[in-house]
């Protein structure tokens, strides 16, 4: 009799624990769902607002013509579009190889005593406000080496912003490459540099592309450093030694104006910028897609 009572008591205690556990579990799931919904909702609201407000500004001329002075109808943001693509290409060409190389140095040659220093430097640069980088490039290139506002100064400023992003993202993905693949390649009699170039980087390709896309997306939206370096240009230009337009600069100029027409154009330009960043990402992923299934 006593034994049964004890057993029943133990069972009901266990039931209570299980019931409480289920309750906590449900509560946590509800909180996680809420947090996810807030995140997704923010994205949908921002994108939706940009699309709704920007679409009225879009027409063929918006992509092919240069901006017209206030008071004239029409006009486009083509010089800024070209400028943004050119700045992205040049800054990417500088920053992506440098970022990858520094990540390779930190991960693959980590026994060296310089690796932690490189890593620390990348972290410091990543923490610098972009306007500070802009001021530095302004002093160093615009007032110094080049002597005037120029696209190349803008590209260098963007590259400085991109290098730590590429370096730290690539670092993470290189660490994900299984050590067993490095050993397999070494055991085949491959020199270390070849293991990195032929095995490690190709294995991490998807992650390296993601790093490049992240960095390009981040830099394509930078405005402050470009105000001090590329300056902006309403005319078509692909000359790296002259001022050049960029979509964020165009947005800024349209947005701070008092005219409704220009506000609409600011939204339109924002939409173009978002789409360009998205397209560049898709394009890069397509070009670098794996060829073996």
């Amino acid at each position, binding site marked *: 009799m006593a034994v049964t009572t004890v057993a029943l008591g133990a069972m009901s205690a266990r039931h209570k624990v299980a019931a409480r556990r289920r309750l906590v579990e449900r509560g946590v799931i509800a909180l996680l769902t809420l947090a996810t919904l807030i995140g997704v909702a923010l994205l949908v609201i921002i994108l939706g607002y940009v699309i709704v407000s920007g679409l009225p500004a879009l027409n063929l001329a918006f992509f092919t013509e240069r901006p017209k002075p206030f008071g004239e109808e029409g006009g486009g943001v083509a010089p800024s579009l070209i400028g943004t693509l050119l700045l992205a290409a040049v800054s990417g060409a500088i920053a992506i190889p440098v970022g990858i190389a520094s990540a390779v140095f930190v991960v693959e040659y980590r026994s060296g005593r310089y690796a932690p220093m490189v890593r620390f430097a990348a972290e410091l640069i990543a923490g610098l406000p972009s306007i500070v980088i802009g001021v530095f490039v302004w002093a160093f290139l615009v007032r110094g080496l080049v002597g005037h506002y120029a696209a190349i100064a803008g590209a260098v400023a963007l590259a400085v912003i991109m290098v730590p992003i590429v370096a730290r993202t690539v670092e993470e993905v290189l660490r994900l490459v299984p050590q067993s693949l*490095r050993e397999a390649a070494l*055991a*085949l009699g491959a020199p270390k540099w070849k293991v990195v170039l032929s095995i490690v980087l190709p294995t991490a390709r998807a992650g390296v592309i993601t790093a490049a896309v992240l960095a390009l997306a981040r830099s394509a939206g930078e405005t402050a450093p470009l105000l001090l370096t590329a300056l902006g240009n309403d005319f078509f230009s692909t000359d790296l030694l002259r001022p050049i337009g960029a979509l964020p600069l165009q947005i800024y100029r349209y947005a701070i104006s008092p005219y409704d027409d220009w506000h609409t154009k600011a939204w339109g330009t924002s939409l173009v910028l978002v789409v360009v960043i998205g397209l560049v990402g898709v394009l890069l992923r397509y070009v670098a897609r794996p060829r073996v299934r």
Partner: protein
Amino acid sequence: MTAQYVTTEPQASRDAGEPEAERPAIAMRLERLEAHYGATKAVDGVNLDIHKNTVTAIIGPSGCGKSTLLRCLNRMHETTPGTRVRGQVFLGSEDIYWSGVDPVEIRSRVGMVFQKPNPFPMMSVYDNVAAGPRLRGWRMNRRQVDDLVEENLRRAALWDEVKDKLHRSGAALSGGQQQRLCIARTLATNPDVMLMDEPCSALDPIATYKIEELIRELAHDVTIVVVTHNMQQASRVSEWTAFMLAGDDGVGRLVEFDRTDRVFTTPRDPRTEAYITGRFG
């Protein structure tokens, strides 16, 4: 004539009583080999002869240093930061730890197959087999690479299973096929010695059987050293067996080295007997 030959042959006294034909040449010789991880000594004082074109099994319980020892034979041990090797390992007549030796060159003569199959996932079956020669920069035309790939897939008994999917990813094969692909990849670099680190421990019994059959077959023209914690496997595939054991100090040492049949039937050391009869480990 015979007497004179015996006196000039240094091996003779040790192997006295062995018929001449049963004494194969030595592929590798380990002398007083020590391996360290940082301040920890993992393997100490190993003297061992690896006979040419035979299978040598290294057995012992977990943590006895058998994998570490194996990794010293192609200078793989030192690729882990903080590690150190002392003593000598002769490949032919050359000490691979002599200061003027390039470890990359050693690894191109002593291949290695790992515990977990590790085909390069972004490469096709074909490219996996061709990877070694390509990584080493051999100049080959398309036709030569084709022949090399087919020949080595055949040697690894994999050709018939993959000849229709040469250009599919190596990672899409089954575990046993992946391991044979790794063997083909190693063979393609034409090594003198092939080291195998528990090559079947991640495989099912049928895949294991195929690999074991392959090991015996390959030993006709490659020297094989295989680490295994499976004693039946050692007795099935090897002609020579080395038994290692970690002492109370945690340092792995060679306890016994002899022909496999002798180790498994008449071991000299009581610890060997205890291990093979399953009393510990």
